[in-house]
């Protein structure tokens, strides 16, 4: 094995330092959720009481968040992949402009999108109070991420020639799409999915405006807990959030790595 120079150790040290800087507060916060009394410190003993309280009080927000994230993923897959395909298939001045527009949601604050939704649909009672109202907001927000991610892959492969190759062998449009187009952009689809699920799970700005007492997502509940309850409860919430979301993200990431 090659001997590593001072630069390597310097870089490693710096990376570890940055990681610690990010991870230590999260870790401390989660520990606080397991402590009997945060102010007294860890000497006061460890308990699952706060976790239990969060679980009984906020369980619904967790499941709602996961449900919305998955529905949002389904929505962006169904809308985003065909959109990206259409954009990649016929590169014209118009599709270029649309591609540029796709960065918009990053530039427009979630609050503005949420307000627009409320102004437009706020009066539609059933929709306004349903979880699908939040879902609509999340899809609007995350769709461009899916489209861009798939489009990047489609633009990198020679899509037209591949499709012509399949057509020359007798494949009609549907067969070409499912046998050749989809499998060859799966890295983009997985990367986009990872992004969409993460963004939807953690989305707060827009969701805070869109939610009703009956449709509270995990981040909204978390903010509530920190604002109105004991610090230990908020921290226990973070712990649960972490435990729920990590396996999901790790699984998606592993899948992305696997197909490469």
């Amino acid at each position, binding site marked *: 094995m090659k001997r590593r120079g001072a630069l390597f150790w310097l870089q490693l040290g710096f990376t570890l330092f940055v990681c610690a800087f990010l991870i230590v507060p999260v870790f401390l916060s989660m520990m606080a959720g397991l402590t009997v009394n945060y102010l007294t410190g860890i000497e006061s003993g460890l308990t699952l009481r706060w976790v239990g309280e969060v679980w009984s009080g906020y369980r619904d927000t967790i499941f709602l968040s996961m449900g919305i994230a998955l529905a949002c993923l389904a929505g962006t897959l169904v809308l985003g992949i065909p959109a990206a395909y259409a954009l990649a298939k016929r590169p014209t001045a118009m599709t270029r402009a649309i591609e540029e527009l796709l960065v918009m949601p990053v530039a427009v604050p979630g609050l503005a999108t949420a307000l627009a939704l409320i102004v437009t649909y706020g009066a539609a009672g059933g929709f306004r109070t349903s979880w699908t109202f939040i879902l609509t907001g999340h899809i609007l927000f995350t769709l461009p991420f899916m489209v861009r991610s798939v489009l990047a892959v489609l633009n990198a492969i020679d899509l037209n020639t591949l499709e*012509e*190759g399949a057509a020359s062998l*007798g494949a009609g449009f549907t067969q070409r799409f499912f*046998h050749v187009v989809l499998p060859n952009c799966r890295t983009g689809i997985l990367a986009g999915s990872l992004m969409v699920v993460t963004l939807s799970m953690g989305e707060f700005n827009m969701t805070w405006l869109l939610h009703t007492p009956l449709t509270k997502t995990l981040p909204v509940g978390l903010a509530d807990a920190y604002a109105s309850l004991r610090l230990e409860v908020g921290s226990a919430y973070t712990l649960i959030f972490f435990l729920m979301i990590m396996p999901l993200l790790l699984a998606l990431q592993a899948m992305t790595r696997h197909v490469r």
Partner: protein
Amino acid sequence: MTEGFKPIAITLENCGKTFADGTRALHPLTLEIAASETIVFLGPSGCGKTTTLRIIAGLETPDPGGRVLFDGEDVTALPIERRRVGMVFQSYALFPNMSVAENVGYGLRVRRVAGAEAAGRVAEMLAMMRIEALADRRIDQLSGGQRQRVALARALAVRPRVLLMDEPLTALDAKLRDALRLEIDELLRRLGITAIYVTHDQAEAMALGDRIVVMDHGRVAQVGKPRDIYQRPSTRFVADFIGTMNRINGTVRDGAFVTAAGAIPWREAPPGASEALFRPEDVTLDDTAEAHLRGRLTAAFFLGDRTRLFIDVGMEKPLVTETGARRDFTHDEPIGLRIDPRGLMAL
């Protein structure tokens, strides 16, 4: 091993192509291709070869008025997936998400050929192209030559009615190109399939084509057997594009073509010809007093088995000839030339 191919005749009737942006890629072209024939479209870049091939394939529709017939049946309106053609693309267009065997079997899969029969056919194609050992490889694990073989096997696996190839060897290095050219030639003859081959390489065209269609700026310049096209080019463009052509200016007088560098006996000279054309192989060195033309050597390239000579006779371009003479040539040395009158042409 090779049965099941039913070659068809193809007719192009007034097939022109104007693209949406107004580019006139192809002027109306009419051509009969016989069953089992190998036709080569030859011409410089941008002359419309690929466009013609894509019209036959069904990837482009000809301008209104144009028709494509397969064995008399009008297929102009049929998309490529319903024409039963085999196509080899210049960039191969192999599917990166499938193994070699899956690529070769894809046409059978979409045609719902039964599993055992399909597997047998794939094995047969892999054996025919001698790539059995690669069956489970991914496409990105193959060399260019191997990809080419997979592309051919894939196109032939569905027993197409016609095999279309767009510059299949252009991306390969010279040695491999020669080897594969020989193999393709042998394959086409053995299968007896109607084949249409596009290239800008005249050596490839001469080697493979039963007939060559020389194209220039979207028009057919000449159609004919390789030998006819080489020996009797019908236009200056064809004469220059195929092989090397010498030209010399002069006038016809008393059964000879008289030039500033000497006179060439030419009994059948067309009266009024002001330019004579001849190939390098119709020229021999002659240092006797009977030499037809005299000039000076400007360059000599030793090629191993022969030497290529460039001789200045006061024309725009030096004359070219080749000799097997075992001697050194020096720059500016006087050279006498004798021209075989059977090789003389005027255009």
